[in-house]
C-alpha cells in the first residue's frame, strides 16, 4: 500500500498490464477493468439471449408448433426478453463504454466511487447467476413484463426466481447511474464546463438520471409481485380486491423510461461517431445535448401508452397519446442534427461510421413506427401484434445494438491497444445491416396483417413472411458471431493502435495513451477548447 496515492500515476504501464492475475481483475476498482468485466459478462448474456431468439425463430418457420411445445415456446420468448433487456441492453453501452469512457471524457482518474462501481458489477454477476439458475430449472413463461395475475397466481413457472434476479440487477443499474451522475457533477477537469462535455457524456448523464429515478419503482413492483406470489395475498389480484391494471401502471412507469435507458446511450455514441468521421463539429451542440435531457424527462410521462387497450380511461389514453408524440420532437432534433453534421463534412466510411449511418436510418424507422403505435386508433389495430415487435426491435437492435457495435469498434483501439481488421469488420457490419432488415421488416408486414405476438402457431398464410424473417435472423446471427472472432484475434495479432488512430477530438484520444495507464492521464488535463473542435485541427497526441 502506498502512503501517497498519487504515486500510482507515474507507473508507465497501461491498465491491462499494470497488474496480473485473476484477483487483479475480479477485485479491481479501475473503471476500465470493470468495463472489461462488464464486456465479458454482457457478451455471454447476449449469446444466451440470442440462443433463445434462435429457438423462437426456428419454431416460427412452420405454422404448427413442432420444434417446441407452446409451453416451452412461451418460456423461450420470455427468457429472450428478460436476458436481452436487463442483462444486455440496459448495461450495454453505459456499463461497458460508459464505464470505460466517462471518467476519461470528463478528465478524471476514475469514477467518483470506484468500489461502488465494482459492487455494481458483482451485483450484476449475482443477478446473472440467478437468471441462469432460473433458466436451468425451467425458466419463466409470463413474458418479460410479468403481467399479473398470471405471474402471481396462474403461471407454473419460476417467476419469483426471475423477479429476484431482476430485483438484484436493478441495484446494479442504480449504483452505475449514481456513480455517473456524481462523476459528471464533481469530477470534471479544470476547464471542462458542462457545455464542453462530449455528447456521449450528456446522453449517459440523462440515462443515469432515468436509472436512478425509474429503477426503484421496478424494484418495489417486483417485490409486491413476489410477496403476492409467495404469501398468496392480494395486491394485484382482483379476487382479493386488488387491481391488475395498477401493476401495469407501476411496471410501465419503470419500463417505458427504461426504453430510453436502452436508446439514449446509443444516441451518445452516434454523436461521437458522426462528428469524428465527418471531421466537423456537431451541428447544434446545445440542441443535441438538451434533447437527451428532454427525452429523459418526457420518458417519465408516457407510460400509459402501453395501456391503451388495458381498460385505462379514454381521457388518460388521449393525454398519454399526445405526450408520446412529444418524445418524437427531441428524437427528430437529434436525427436532423446528425444529418446536418454530415452535410459538407469530409465523410470517411470506416466501420464505426457504417454502424452510425445504419443507426440513423434504422432508428428513424423505429421512431416513425413508434408514432403509429402512439396513435390511439392505429394502436388498437396493431396492439400485441408483430408490428409492435418489429417497432421495438428497430429501436433496440437496429438502434442500440448497432450503436454499441459502432462504439465498440470505434473505441476498440483505445480499449485493447490494437486495431480491428477493417475488411472483416465491414463484412460483419454489412451482414448485420442486411440480416437485421430481413429479420424485422417482414414483421411489420405480419403485424399489420394481424399476426399476434407470443404464439407458437399461426395461420398458414403468414408462413412466407416468417420464413423470410428466420432467414434474416440466421444472417444476423453470423453477423454477430464474426466480430467475436476477429476482435479476439485482434487482441493478439491486430496492428498496434496509435494514441489517436481516428484523429478524433476528446480527452480520451488526445490526452490518453492506447491503452491508457491505470489513472488515465499522466497529469489531469486542463481543457481550453469546446468539444468536437475539428475545425481548429485536433491534437494527435
Amino acid at each position, binding site marked *: 500500500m502506498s502512503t501517497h496515492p498519487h504515486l500510482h500515476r507515474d507507473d508507465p504501464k497501461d491498465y491491462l498490464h499494470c497488474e496480473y492475475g485473476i484477483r487483479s481483475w475480479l477485485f479491481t476498482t479501475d473503471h476500465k477493468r470493470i468495463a472489461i468485466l462488464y464486456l465479458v459478462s454482457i457478451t455471454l448474456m447476449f449469446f444466451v439471449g440470442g440462443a433463445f431468439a434462435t429457438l423462437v425463430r426456428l419454431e416460427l418457420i412452420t405454422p404448427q408448433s413442432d420444434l417446441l411445445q407452446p409451453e416451452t415456446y412461451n418460456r423461450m420468448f420470455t427468457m429472450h426478453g428478460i436476458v436481452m433487456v436487463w442483462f444486455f441492453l440496459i448495461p450495454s453501452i453505459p456499463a461497458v463504454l460508459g464505464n470505460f469512457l466517462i471518467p476519461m471524457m470528463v478528465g478524471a482518474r476514475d469514477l467518483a466511487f470506484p468500489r461502488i462501481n465494482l459492487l455494481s458489477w458483482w451485483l450484476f454477476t449475482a443477478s446473472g447467476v440467478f437468471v441462469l439458475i432460473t433458466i436451468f430449472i425451467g425458466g419463466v413463461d409470463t413474458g418479460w413484463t410479468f403481467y399479473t395475475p398470471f405471474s402471481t397466481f396462474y403461471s407454473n413457472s419460476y417467476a419469483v426466481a426471475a423477479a429476484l434476479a431482476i430485483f438484484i440487477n436493478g441495484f446494479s443499474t442504480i449504483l452505475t447511474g449514481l456513480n455517473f451522475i456524481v462523476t459528471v457533477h464533481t469530477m470534471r477537469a479544470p476547464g471542462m464546463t458542462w457545455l464542453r462535455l462530449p455528447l456521449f457524456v450528456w446522453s449517459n448523464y440523462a440515462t443515469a438520471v432515468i436509472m436512478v429515478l425509474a429503477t426503484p419503482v421496478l424494484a418495489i413492483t417486483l417485490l409486491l409481485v413476489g*410477496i403476492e406470489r409467495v404469501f398468496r395475498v392480494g395486491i394485484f389480484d382482483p379476487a*382479493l380486491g386488488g387491481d391488475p391494471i395498477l401493476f401495469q401502471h*407501476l411496471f410501465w412507469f419503470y419500463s417505458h423510461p427504461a426504453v430510453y435507458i436502452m436508446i439514449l446511450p446509443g444516441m451518445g455514441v452516434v454523436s461521437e461517431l458522426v462528428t469524428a468521421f465527418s471531421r466537423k463539429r456537431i451541428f447544434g451542440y446545445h440542441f443535441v445535448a438538451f434533447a437527451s435531457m428532454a427525452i429523459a424527462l418526457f420518458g417519465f410521462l408516457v407510460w400509459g401508452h402501453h395501456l391503451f387497450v388495458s381498460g385505462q380511461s379514454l381521457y388518460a389514453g388521449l393525454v398519454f397519446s399526445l405526450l408520446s408524440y412529444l418524445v418524437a420532437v427531441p428524437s427528430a432534433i437529434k436525427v436532423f442534427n446528425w444529418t446536418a453534421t454530415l452535410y459538407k463534412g469530409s465523410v470517411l466510411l470506416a466501420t464505426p461510421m457504417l454502424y452510425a449511418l445504419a443507426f440513423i436510418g434504422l432508428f428513424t424507422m423505429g421512431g416513425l413506427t413508434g408514432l403509429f403505435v402512439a396513435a390511439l386508433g392505429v394502436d388498437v389495430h396493431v396492439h400485441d401484434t408483430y408490428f409492435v415487435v418489429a417497432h421495438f426491435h428497430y429501436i433496440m437492435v437496429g438502434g442500440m445494438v448497432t450503436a454499441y457495435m459502432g462504439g465498440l469498434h470505434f473505441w476498440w483501439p483505445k480499449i485493447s491497444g490494437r486495431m480491428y481488421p477493417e475488411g472483416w469488420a465491414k463484412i460483419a457490419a454489412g451482414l448485420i445491416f442486411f440480416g437485421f432488415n430481413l429479420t424485422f421488416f417482414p414483421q411489420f408486414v405480419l403485424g399489420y396483417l394481424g399476426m399476434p405476438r407470443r404464439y407458437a402457431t399461426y395461420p398458414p398464410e403468414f408462413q412466407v413472411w416468417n420464413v423470410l424473417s428466420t432467414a434474416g435472423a440466421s444472417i444476423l446471427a453470423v453477423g454477430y458471431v464474426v466480430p467475436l472472432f476477429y476482435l479476439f484475434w485482434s487482441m493478439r495479432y491486430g496492428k498496434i493502435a496509435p494514441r489517436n488512430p481516428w484523429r478524433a477530438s476528446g480527452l480520451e484520444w488526445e490526452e490518453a495513451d492506447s491503452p491508457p495507464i491505470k489513472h488515465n492521464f499522466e497529469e489531469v488535463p486542463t481543457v481550453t477548447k469546446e468539444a468536437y473542435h475539428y475545425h481548429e485541427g485536433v491534437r494527435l497526441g
Partner: protein
Amino acid sequence: MVEAEPVGPHHTPLREQFEALGQQREADTLGMWVFLSTEILFFGGVITSYMIYRSLFAPAFHIGSGHLDLVSGTAMTVILLASSFTMALSVHAAEHGLRRRLMLCLALTLVLGLAFLGLKAHEYYHVYQERLVPGSRFHLEGPHAREVQLFMMHYFIMTGMHALHMIIGAGMLIFLITYAARNTYKNYTVEICGLYWHFVDIVWLFLFPLLYLFELRTR
C-alpha cells in the same frame, strides 16, 4: 489504500481518484443525495399503490386503520423526531470536533432508533395476535374483510420497508460510534449518515398520517 495514513478527529484521507478534499466531500455528499432520490421513488411506488386502494376502499381502510394503536404510533413519531434532533446535534458535534458530545448524541440517536423498532415489533405482535396478518391465518368478520386484508398488506410492506431502513441506519450508527470511540471518524461522514437518518424519519412522517390518522378526520 489509506491504512498507513495518520488519523485524528479532523483527518480525512483523500482517496486516489480525487484531486482535493473539497471535491471528495462534494462527491460523497451528492452521492448520498442521489441515493435518497432513488429511495423516494422506491417508497413512492408502494405509497402510490396504497393511496389508490385507500381511495377505492375507503371504508375498509378506515376499519384497518382502526386496528392500529394510535397512541403507540404517536409515540413512535415523537421518538423518531427526537432521534432526528439528536442526529442533528451529532452532526454539529462532529463538525466542531467535540468527540465526547458526538459519542453521546450518536448513542442517544441509536437508543431512540432501537426504541422505535421495539415499539414497532410490539405493534406487529399485537396485529399478529388479532389475526390480522394477511394470508391464510387472516381472520376478520364483516363485509369489508377482504379489503382490510389489502390495507394490512400495505401496512406491513410500508412499515416493514421503513423498519429495514431503520435497522440499516442503526448499524450505521454503531459504526459511527466505534469510529468516534477510536477517534478515527471523518468529519463529514457523520453529516452524510445524518442525511440518511433524516430521510428515513421523513418517510415515517408520511407513513404515520397515511396509516394511523385515518380515524381522526371522521371524529
